């Protein structure tokens, strides 16, 4: 997929009030070839937050001002889909658990090892990348569906629910030949190389199509 939809550059956003931790995180992550941006507070991050951001967020739970948890909730409200790794201190575990239940990827307790941190970050980035590809794919399919003619759409709907060309011709009251032409055009327009691929694409966008 990624070759079909070249990924945006993924950036790791580190939000922590401790300057030493931000600096050391940058040093550590850059050593692993990640691009890092740091923010000294939740507010600072939210200010620079864009919908088209790619990457993930490493978020300290306990911060003066807006806490990590509050910021996470705010991201949810803003429909920001960046995966979040929480860093917790001593005694913040219950808080982190509740964050996890609300959809955070994971939490990591201070002090953490480089290996654990990198594993979590890689996990996040993959998740994010896949999610983004999926969204792109869906957008592409939707766009292609829009380009179908009325008749082509009708044919497509019947193909998806597993009708044969003959049945389609009967239902629509047209010749099998015509159905075949439409079918070929649908496959072309949807960029699908096989019937399975076609069905998969359409169903991700219109999950109800199978039930018709």
């Amino acid at each position, binding site marked *: 997929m990624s070759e079909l939809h070249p990924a945006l550059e993924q950036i790791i956003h580190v939000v922590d009030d401790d300057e030493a931790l931000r600096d050391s*995180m940058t*040093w550590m992550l850059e*050593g692993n070839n990640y691009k890092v941006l740091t923010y000294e507070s939740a507010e600072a991050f939210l200010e620079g937050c864009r919908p088209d951001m790619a990457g993930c967020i490493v978020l300290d739970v306990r911060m003066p001002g807006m806490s990590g948890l509050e910021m996470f909730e705010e991201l949810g409200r803003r429909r920001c889909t960046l995966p979040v790794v929480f860093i917790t201190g001593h005694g913040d575990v219950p808080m982190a658990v509740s964050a996890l239940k609300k959809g955070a990827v994971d939490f990591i307790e201070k002090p953490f090892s480089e290996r654990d941190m990198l594993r979590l970050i890689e996990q996040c980035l993959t998740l994010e990348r896949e999610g983004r590809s999926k969204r792109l794919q869906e957008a592409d399919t939707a766009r292609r569906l829009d380009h179908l003619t009325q008749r082509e759409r009708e044919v497509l709907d019947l193909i998806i629910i597993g009708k044969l060309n003959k049945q389609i011709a009967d239902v629509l009251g047209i010749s099998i030949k015509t159905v075949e032409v439409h079918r070929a055009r649908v496959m072309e327009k949807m960029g699908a190389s096989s019937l399975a691929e076609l069905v998969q694409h359409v169903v991700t966008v219109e999950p109800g199509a199978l039930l018709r």
Partner: protein
Amino acid sequence: MFRSDSARGDPSHRYWAVPCVVMLFFALGMLALVWLLLQPGFEIEREVALRELQWALPAALILSLSVLVLWSLWSLRIHVQRREQVEKERDRLFDLSLDMLCVAGLDGRFRRCNPAFERILGHAPDSLPGRPMVDFVHDGDIVATLDALHCLAAGEPVKFENRCRCADGSYKWLAWSINPVPEGGLVYAVARDITGNKAAEQALRAESAFRKAMEDSVLTGLRAIDLSGRIIYVNSAFCRMVGWSEDELVGATAPFPYWPKDSLDVCARNLQMTLDGHAPASGFELRIQRRNGELFDARFYLSPLIDASGQQTGWMASITDITEPKRVRAALEATHERFEAVLDGLDAAVFVADARSDEILFANRAFKRINGFDTVGRTVRGVAVPQPERGDYRVDPRGLTAADLPRELFDGELQHPVSGRWYHVREQAMRWVDGRVVRMGIATDSTERKQTAEVARQQEERLQRTSRLITMGEMASMLAHELNQPLSAIANYCAGCVTRMQGGKWKPEDVLAVMQKASFQAERAGKIIRRVREFVKKSEPRRSAVKLVDILDDALGFADIDARRTGIRLVADIEPGLPPVFADRIMIEQVVLNLIRNGLDAMADTLPEQRLLVVRARRCGEDMAGAAGAIEVAVIDRGHGISEEGRQRLFTPFYTTKAEGMGMGLNICRSIIEFHDGRLIVDDNPEGGTIFSFTLPAESVSERVAPSA
């Protein structure tokens, strides 16, 4: 000598008429003779006649003269007789006159005086002539008298009054009327005794002066109107009151100048009421106006004005300016109301009761709210709860006299047996407004204050607990928190370096800078450790030999408040003669208090009669094996007990079953006891509930341990 006007008339005319008639006849005779002689027939005899005439004329003349003389003598006699008569009458009048009559010279000396002088002044008329009038004049009247005499000398008649001395030395008022007769060099004087009049006049004047003074001095305005409503009299007080002069007011009719313009109808109605005789006996109040426009309240009292003949001629009104009294009264009322409002507004219950009879004379609203709204008139002993017992008073209020006042009777905290609320009650003996000895009580609900104080104390305790009696668990938690940051940073820096070095693409200067940062973070961690160590040092217990009894007493004293509030019996069961323990007094006290509190809390749901908490202290030798001994303190409650699961977690930090608990209490307690080389044990109470007990080594034992601790 004495001439009166009436004596100058008729008789003198007659005296002249007689000679005139005689002369007339004589003249006529002469004329008739001359005529006869001139007749022609008498020419012959004219000679004879002339001769005869020469003879006859003197004869006739003599004859007529004789007649004339005779007649004159006769009439003179008549005249003298009459004159004597008149003079006699005059003298009689002169002598009989009730007024004093006298003749004096212009030099002021008496010439003649009538007997009235003797009757009135007592001086014999004979003794007076020749003496100057001023000799008899009162010293105070001499000047006026001399003035009058000067006028006389100038020929003017005078009238004046003076006082003249009587023979007996007293003085009498005389009214003089003196006419001068300058040609005669005399004055004729009439003097009348007016002493009586004078006295009456004097009395009258004195009375009128008195009345004037009285009128002027009274502050009450007086105003009389006649039956038509016209003002016929005002006194000066009324003039002063309203600002108009008497002249302006007397004669005025309604509307009177002092009626305010905007309430003329009210004033007119009142006037009509007055004239109709319907003014209330208690008078009425009317707002009237001064000349300067200032309004004031006046009270009018009216009474009919009756003249000497018993006829009503009008109405007399007395008017009082009641602005000031009204203001004072209003101020007094306001003060009273304020006073009552303040007392009623108080949360404190206030009463005043007779010291002897205990009858409640005054109670404010709060008192009535607590003790019933019909308390006034009843006795304090009968209605008030809570109240001190007789024995609680410093002195018996019933025996106090006025000389002992004021005196404080009671000052303490009492609990209402039913509501359970606490009251701070103060009673004082004082003198009541009517002079009798009363006791005044003020009860302030101090429940909240007590609770607040209690909460404050608990907070203080908690603070002490957290700051001073920190456990290792807590310390570790704090340390972990503080150390996380630098450790994480160091780990990151190092990991970054390792990654780069493994990858082979690194610049020494970069790594150097980062290693410096890492070492700085390590220093930061070191500082945190140091700070914690100092903190720990500061909170180290200070142990000394202390009597366990003292510690337990203090702890029980504190806990007693809670126990009483919750209706729990606290029983101390302390073995006598316990040896001192080597301990930090405050720490052990905290442990005991904490255990007692837990026990009290655990009994919240226990039946009231079973609410009993025992604090027991006794020797036990078995703990310190072979040593002189230890002391065991046990806190035994009858509460809900502790489940098996609860018991396992009992000493875990942050484990709590209380809503506001921190979950540190028992943990701290155990730390403290262990620090004191003792043990904190929890057991089930066979009678239900829990027993927390700890041991402390007796002092003789711990002395050896202390230096190493």
